[in-house]
């Protein structure tokens, strides 16, 4: 499968997980498992066994994994984007992931939290508790 095709497919499959996360997860554990699948798909790491609860590590690994897959030999360069913000792609990726999750689930996550969240479990806890209180 071409990279672009795979990307489109992964994003569609991640979107498919949103309704179950919003409406059908009846426990934190079930929600967390769905969230992990959502992240693996959006980060294009569903074809590896790699996993960690650390969001920064996940973001870094996702970039490295994609770069390795692309095979352009730039793996040893530090990835600092050239825009004025000076953000690495991995750093940007984490913020955009959480912004997308916030939008998909209709939950509240502060901008500070988007930038500083460290743990997938913590994100799951925050999201699940908000969704649970909505349905209660």
């Amino acid at each position, binding site marked *: 499968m071409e990279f672009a095709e795979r990307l489109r497919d992964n994003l569609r499959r991640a979107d498919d997980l949103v309704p179950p996360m919003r409406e059908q997860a009846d426990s934190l554990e079930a929600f967390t498992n769905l969230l992990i699948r959502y992240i693996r798909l959006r980060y294009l790491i569903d074809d590896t066994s790699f996993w960690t609860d650390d969001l920064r590590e996940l973001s870094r690994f996702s970039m490295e994994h994609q770069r390795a897959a692309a095979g352009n030999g730039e793996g040893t360069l530090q990835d600092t984007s050239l825009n004025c913000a000076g953000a690495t792609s991995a750093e940007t990726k984490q913020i955009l992931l*959480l*912004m997308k999750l916030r939008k998909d689930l209709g939950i509240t996550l502060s901008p500070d939290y988007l930038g500083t969240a460290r743990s997938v479990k913590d994100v799951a806890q925050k999201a699940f508790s908000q969704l649970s209180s909505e349905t209660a």
Partner: protein
Amino acid sequence: MEPISKTQDIKLNIKPVIFGLIHEYVFEGPCRFGRGDELTSDFDEARTAQIAAGWDEALRAELGSLDFVNVMAPYVSKRDETFPLTDDLIADLCADKEEVDLYAVTYYPFGIDFALQLALATKKPVAVMLTGSATGTATVATLRAHGCECLGWVSWDEARDDVRALLARKVMENLRILALVRHNSTTSISAPDSFIDHGAVTDKMGIRFTYLNMHEFLDQTRENDPTANPTLPGRREGNITAEEAREIQEMTDELVQGALEADMPAENVYKSLRAHYLTRKLLAATGCNGFTAPCPDMCATRRLNQEQFTMCLNHSLNNEEGICSACEYDVSALVSMQLLSALSRTAPYMGNTMIIKYDSDSPVSAPKSLAKHEEAFAAFTRAIEGRGGIVCTYHSTPNRKMRGIAGEATDYALRPFAMDGRWGATIRHDFAQDAGQVVTVARFDPTCRKLFVARGTIVSGAGYHDENCSEGVYYAVNDIAAFNQGSITTGNHQALVYGDVFDAAVRYGELAGFEVLTCA
């Protein structure tokens, strides 16, 4: 006894500052571009928070791990794209400037204008990390052009050296020297190469001096009526009390029992400790935390012979307790000791310093007393055989905390300074056992304009088995000509600490405005 405000307790307060930028509107242009959510104010806020957390975390891990560093709560600026620079914003940024010693700054993505106002308003140094940051480079150029102090780091190792140097500069500003005087308050008979103008020392480094007449000091070592001292009749002074005498006796017992050898009468150790105890009382009473006293000048009065002590043990114990203390009223040596001790966190040593073997085939010019102990002399001879660039630093004031003030005390012997009278307690340390130890050596010049810094490696020692001032450490340096040049420029008594703080000492010299001479 009142507590002494020790320089070893001084912390360097580092304030992380993050200049963020939160765009109010979604737009693109020559300095802003991205896709979708990347152009929202939420993204900017998240990114600012991300940078702030990363900067704070890095500072705490890389610099906060140093025991003398206190990383303060970060300041995060969230200006919008109108780049406001109001008095209120500047005042808020500088709110805790009195406590801050260094502002460590980073950006998302602009804010040099704000950093400049910070430096101008606080007159405190600002530091930036340069690697991967064009803004860091521009910060250094901008702030320096405006006469502000700005440090640009290319690595955390370099940052740690700078932080040590800044700590030393703060320590110097808080050094208060109690100086016993006889003839005048500037130079003694044996250390005319000390600072020739204490006012210049105060102006340049912030060090202040309290002078005390040595006869007044000597009177107070006696357990007499504190209002009946010959030099201060009718004034109530700090003479040793009966209760303090009991405490000094306990200190004596502990010191004698702890020694591997105590080759002098315990009652004469007591007399030296009495002088030390009084020194501590006077340091506390005068708000001082450094000490020096003349040697030949005092000796010539015959009062030390009368009271039966020298200041050697006092200097050793002061140094290991974190109060720098120099022989012979050598204020340059004292300040040099304070510099090295602040950088290394170890107890300093000082002494007569001389080149004893210039080249590998030069004759050995070691003091004759070295040859007295046959076995030690043989070991010394073996250690320097075929080697050049050998220097010795020589005084009977080593201490038990040269490996670290917070660490365990090393082994020692007690022997007298006065060979006939068996008084004047000295700590004997076997420097030969420390062969291979890297040392840093330094001294300020008499004009307070130059600083010499050298790195050496111990090769041997002498005087452990001996008495008097015949005790010293022998070390090899890489560039003996440079060492010679540094010595003759700055003077005899070099300060010495265990450990390699060469880079930080050089950096201190640069930051404090000294011309630095080196022997790396």
